[in-house]
């Protein structure tokens, strides 16, 4: 293939993203149409923005690669990534929006009335952020290598550089509009080549089960410990979504809890549409690009498929389009994630000086460079697997925190901190082992490869247990907080005003006893 097409596409997307990030798309209005300017972002735009930021390297490249390699079992990845929003919709979306929290640390502080819980949450946010950035940078390396044959690290460094410039130059001025645009760009970049390839395949008229090499490919529950591995994957993806820092930050743009629910519903629709396509690539890859399975380069199937099916300039164009979409995916997810994580880090962990802007820049540089270092020492697990490990950590930390925090008034700060530390620690240890490429013998193997099935309940029970043991330390205004989380905005009730700087007065604690 001609490298120029791919290279042009990647550079064009990078420059476009850079331009939008630095100069910004702003709603500019003069007095004539004032009333448009202050109208908030609607659920459709918000849903597109969440989907745009959420669809990462794992969705664009990884899912198809896993389907190509593992068949039916890998379908759980796209299903889980979508179904996570169902859990979010039913249990979390509206209360989270009503809390007014912009980050998960904000939520922890508000609900638990504890600075310590806030700090611990911030560390976990940073951890999840770095784990999630890792596969994005890795995917960029794969893409650039496939497109132009450059060494893997060039792509990773390119994405890291663009993200740094965007964030350091003022931090993505209008994230919502940019990310909403990204969803439609990614969808187009994936759906157009898929349609062309499908038409070509239909004209050729070849499909036999023998050619699909289906012996065990379409059969679910393949391999040792399949039941455990799949249920663990389901738990991680269904429950991990709510703990992703960049997803939570997007919910803030909704006007109220009701809009947050409608947005989540929209996300469910948009993601369901998007995730149909990786399956197409996986199946067509089985027909035309089977050599990738032997080479162990299944992550590249989306990018290589056009040149395996078609020939000439048409194939190059499709590959260029896919490369552009893939880069859009890395850049939007990475920059959104970097902004969220750097915000939390600069606020709670690095806060040294009086200059929040400088803290924010330092935090961004730290997050990006840490990810690059981790990428250099990790052993290159498949992209979708790496993303799933980040989901596992999120499911083992913030999922119990959010669920218990929203639905159980008994959660205390010591309980939450203990759960975050134990669940997050156990899961991170397993993830480190997985990233290092170590495969434990016997039963420990699957337990470490897919830790969510035991770390998530562990964290949940530690939170419940320690909270019950420290029942005396329930936050002073937990009842007010609950009212705030669960009452629709238009109702006129006392929602309380928790202020961390203010100590609890004796009078207030009597009021709390009365409430109980």
């Amino acid at each position, binding site marked *: 293939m001609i490298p120029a097409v791919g290279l042009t596409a990647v550079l064009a997307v990078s420059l476009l993203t850079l331009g939008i990030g630095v100069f*910004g798309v702003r709603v500019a209005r003069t007095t004539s149409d004032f009333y448009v300017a202050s109208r908030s972002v609607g659920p459709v735009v918000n849903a597109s923005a969440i989907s745009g930021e959420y669809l990462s390297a794992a969705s664009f490249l990884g899912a198809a690669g896993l389907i190509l390699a593992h068949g039916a079992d890998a379908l759980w990845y796209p299903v889980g990534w979508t179904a996570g929003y169902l859990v979010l919709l039913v249990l979390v979306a509206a209360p989270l929006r009503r809390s007014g929290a912009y980050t998960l640390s904000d939520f922890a502080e508000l609900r638990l009335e504890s600075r310590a819980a806030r700090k611990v949450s911030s560390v976990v946010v940073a951890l999840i952020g770095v784990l999630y950035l890792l596969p994005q940078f890795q995917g960029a390396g794969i893409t650039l290598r496939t497109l132009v044959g450059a060494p893997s690290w060039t792509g990773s460094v390119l994405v890291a550089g663009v993200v740094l410039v965007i964030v350091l130059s003022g*931090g993505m001025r*209008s994230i919502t509009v940019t990310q909403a645009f990204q969803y439609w760009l990614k969808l187009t970049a994936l759906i157009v080549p898929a349609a062309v390839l499908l038409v070509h395949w239909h004209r050729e008229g070849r499909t036999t089960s023998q050619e699909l090499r289906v012996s065990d490919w379409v059969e679910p529950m393949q391999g040792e410990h399949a039941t455990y591995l799949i249920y663990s994957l389901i738990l991680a993806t269904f429950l991990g979504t709510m703990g992703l820092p960049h997803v939570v930050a997007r919910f803030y743009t909704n006007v109220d809890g009701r809009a947050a629910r409608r947005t989540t519903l929209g996300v469910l629709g948009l993601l369901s549409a998007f995730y149909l396509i990786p399956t197409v690539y996986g199946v067509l890859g089985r027909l035309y690009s089977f050599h990738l399975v032997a080479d162990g380069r299944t992550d590249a199937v989306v990018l290589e498929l056009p040149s395996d099916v078609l020939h000439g300039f048409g194939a190059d164009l499709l590959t260029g389009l896919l490369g552009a979409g893939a880069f859009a995916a890395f850049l939007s997810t990475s920059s959104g994630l970097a902004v969220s994580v750097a915000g939390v880090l600069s606020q709670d962990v690095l806060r040294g000086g009086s200059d929040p802007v400088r803290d*924010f820049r330092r935090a961004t540089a730290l997050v990006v460079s840490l990810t690059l270092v981790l990428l250099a020492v990790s052993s290159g697990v498949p992209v979708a697997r790496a993303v799933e490990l980040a989901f596992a950590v999120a499911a083992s930390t913030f999922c119990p925190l959010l669920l218990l925090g929203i639905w159980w008034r008994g959660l205390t700060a010591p309980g939450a901190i203990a759960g975050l530390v134990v669940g997050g620690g156990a899961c991170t240890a397993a993830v480190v*082992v997985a990233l*290092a490429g170590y495969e434990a013998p016997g039963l420990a193997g699957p337990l470490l490869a897919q830790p969510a099935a035991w770390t998530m309940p562990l964290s949940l029970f530690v939170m419940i247990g320690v909270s019950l043991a420290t029942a005396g330390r329930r936050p002073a205004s937990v009842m007010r907080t609950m009212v705030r989380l669960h009452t629709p905005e238009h109702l006129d009730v006392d929602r309380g005003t928790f202020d961390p700087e203010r*100590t609890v007065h004796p009078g207030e604690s009597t009021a709390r006893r009365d409430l109980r």
Partner: protein
Amino acid sequence: MLIAAMLVLPVAALWWWARRHRGMGSEADRATLRTLHEANRVARPLREGLTETSAERAVRSLRPLLTAPAVALSNGHAVLGWDGPGESHRDDVLTATASVLEDGRARVDRISCTDPACRLRDVISVPLVVGGSVVGTLHALVTVAGAPVIKATHEVADWVSGQLELAEVDRRRSGLAEAELRALRAQISPHFIYNALTTIAAFVRTDPDRARELLLEFADFTRYSFRRRGEYTALSDELQSIEQYLTLERARFGDRLRVTLRIAPDCLTVMVPYLSLQPVVENAVRHGLEPKSGPGEVIVEAVPDGVDIRISVEDNGVGEDPRRIQEALDGVAQADSVGLSNVDMRMRATFGEHYGLVVETAPGAGTKVVMRVPRFAPRAHPNDNVAL
């Protein structure tokens, strides 16, 4: 490689910790340090005042300080915290605290016990005095109430009283800050009301429809400004009131006033103190553009900036001597710029000292006022019930 890193890190941490804790001096030095450390640990809960939670945490550290078998804190009506054995003596402690509260003097009581294992025979009760009145008692339960332990209990009770006094000061101060905030409640300027009404009056004969429209705008604006509840409002609501305000001003200025709003949609749901932006825009119109002869422009811009958003109000008017703005913000200058200093004080009182207004100006060079608002402030909520 990663595993190697995971092994090296804890070892390094251990080495660093050992280095820090080397050379702590003699046994006496260490004892002093330990006592200071315990005293510090008591201070923190006590600074929250005397409650069940704080007392429970405080007695845990008070017991090693007093070297008594059991220590209790009470508020005169109930035992709030107890550390050590013999909780069956709660009633004895309650009678003791009642007597102390009556005459405000320390006392030592004998207590009888049927439990052969219990070694507690005396309870030393010392009043805790804050602002001249007894607010509670500190009790040490010992086998023999010797002079040293009685003396020690007195010293510790004095120290606890000091901490409680500080807690009272803290509480008063935060109450004061709240009262201050309430006193600073947002107000619309009388100038504006006067100007708006005279402008509308001018239209009543020439263009009655326009006058009616403007009067309705004015009604909407005043309804927003006079609302009784809530300290915070979404930026989108605040912008809407600014639009109403500017519509009225444009009726007065005609084509001389151009307005541009550049608002990133992400910022619209951020909670800002109610009427915090309007006075800044009014300042730009009144002090920047009104004295200017030619046409002028106001640009209101809001962009996300990390975990904050940055709102700027810029005009190309006559500008101002920076020293005068400084004086206005310090509250020394005349009442003319009260709006700006009021917003500045409210912002700093609400979000902290870092969130004051930043004003860039020079004579003839226009004015730019920049304010930062955190996206999340625990107290900010649309319908919170802080009475205004």
